[in-house]
């Protein structure tokens, strides 16, 4: 069963991986996205993720279910919201499949697709202020509300 969760607490890898990998699966592939200390040529002090929650968790689960159907694998997706520092995990994809090819492909698919389809936005705090990042564009953000 596909699982998807959006939380405001740090990643617990054991809990995530416990959701996948039954004994008949020979491959486990885990992708973790973490906060980078630079972006658009600037130092990043912190990042904040905000979501449109009524749709975000639903969309995340749809991505997981879709991958399961296409590759016959098991998928657990995780996304963190709130303020994070460089080095913190913000997103995780865990996939298990009978063989490694499906596991790699499904894992790649999940991270690429969730970035496009799940309504979550990032705010980067750099030396020159805070910016909303939307696709390729950045917009100035007011200070913390």
């Amino acid at each position, binding site marked *: 069963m596909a699982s998807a969760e959006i939380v405001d607490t740090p990643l617990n890898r054991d809990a995530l991986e416990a959701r996948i990998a039954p004994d008949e699966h020979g491959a486990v592939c885990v992708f973790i996205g973490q906060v980078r200390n630079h972006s658009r040529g600037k130092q990043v002090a912190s990042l904040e993720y905000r979501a449109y929650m009524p749709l975000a968790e639903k969309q995340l689960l749809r991505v997981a279910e879709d991958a399961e159907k296409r590759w016959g694998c098991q998928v657990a997706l995780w996304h963190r919201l709130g303020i994070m520092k460089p080095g913190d995990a913000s997103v995780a994809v865990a996939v298990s499949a009978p063989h490694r090819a499906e596991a790699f492909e499904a894992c790649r698919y999940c991270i690429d697709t969730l970035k496009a389809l799940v309504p979550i936005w*990032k705010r980067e705090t750099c030396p020159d202020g805070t910016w909303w990042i939307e696709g390729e564009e950045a917009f100035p953000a007011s200070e913390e509300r």
Partner: protein
Amino acid sequence: MESALPEGSAPGEPPSNQLRLIGAHMPSSGGLSSCLLSGREIGCTAVQLFTGNPRQWSHPPLAEEEIRAFQNAREETALPFLCAHDSYLINLAAPDADVLDRSRNAFRGELERAHALGIPWVVTHMGAHLERGEEEAVARLIESLVRILEETDAAGCTAGIALETTAGQGTGLGWRFEQLGAVLKGVDHQQRIGVCMDTCHIFAAGYDLRTEDAWENTLKEFDAQVGLSALRIIHANDSKKGLGSRVDRHEHIGKGEIGLKPFARLVRDARLQHVPVVVETPDAHTMHQVNVALLQRLAAGGTGVFVEVELCGHFSEAGPLLQMELPENTSLQQLAEILEQKDARLAGLSACCQFAVNHEFAERGTLLCEGDRVAALPPSSGG
């Protein structure tokens, strides 16, 4: 935001007076008095309630404290109009002698409870013939009503009976106006018998209300067969099913087969100005407030729809949540344009955003309805 509607959007219609009574059937999970308190809280000026469990035959007499609490709540809320709805089990036209007897006893109980609570009207459906002869069933119904009225008259009961128009589902009686008229004539007790018109039911029964002409014809027919003077209560419900479907499925005002305009016409019709309007639409706890507010706005001359818009990403800088009144039949595309004109910070919204309505993605052509929750979603950057 300020209204997007032009001033005086209902040409030729006088602004309705403040006395139009509009409310809802309130759930009684917290005791009878809670119906009044919660009704008042959501802005009702009329409340309908069950005075007993609508799926039970017998009820113990109301406790003194319950009656006192109800009277206190009535004083506190100053609700100008109350009515009760009877149990679903009651069939005053039942062919089976035993069921008929139980129905008559139970309905007497309904009237007695209403009287004890000071509720002037009990709404009842007209029963069903159950394939055992419609004419005989109507005769039995009339006999039931005459008897019950006589007996309760004698006991000093003043609560009246409002016979409700039905959808004509199954073998139910009362879906043709002439049948209602015949029963009224047969009972002949003007003070204590009247009619409740349910818009969903009459529409499902085949009486159209969607255009000006249709409404006039339906009202004329009602007046000829039943008499407008007998009309005591209106149940304002939209219909999930089509005209003449004879299937009774209530829908939120403006969201069903009847649509918004006929309800505006209804609550502004001077001929019905004195008749309280009660909604019995789904999702009472969340949506009664929306439907009641909508009817009140329509009565006051507004034709717009109220929606809530959540702005996401950098557009949230313009205020994350907007309450907006839009003209009827505004599409998401038009909303995007209205938003861009409203605030410079929303420039570019139409080009880049996807939209969600009620928590699902929606096409630009989607027409917005009362109470819709819209979200404007710029390209995401999660991960």
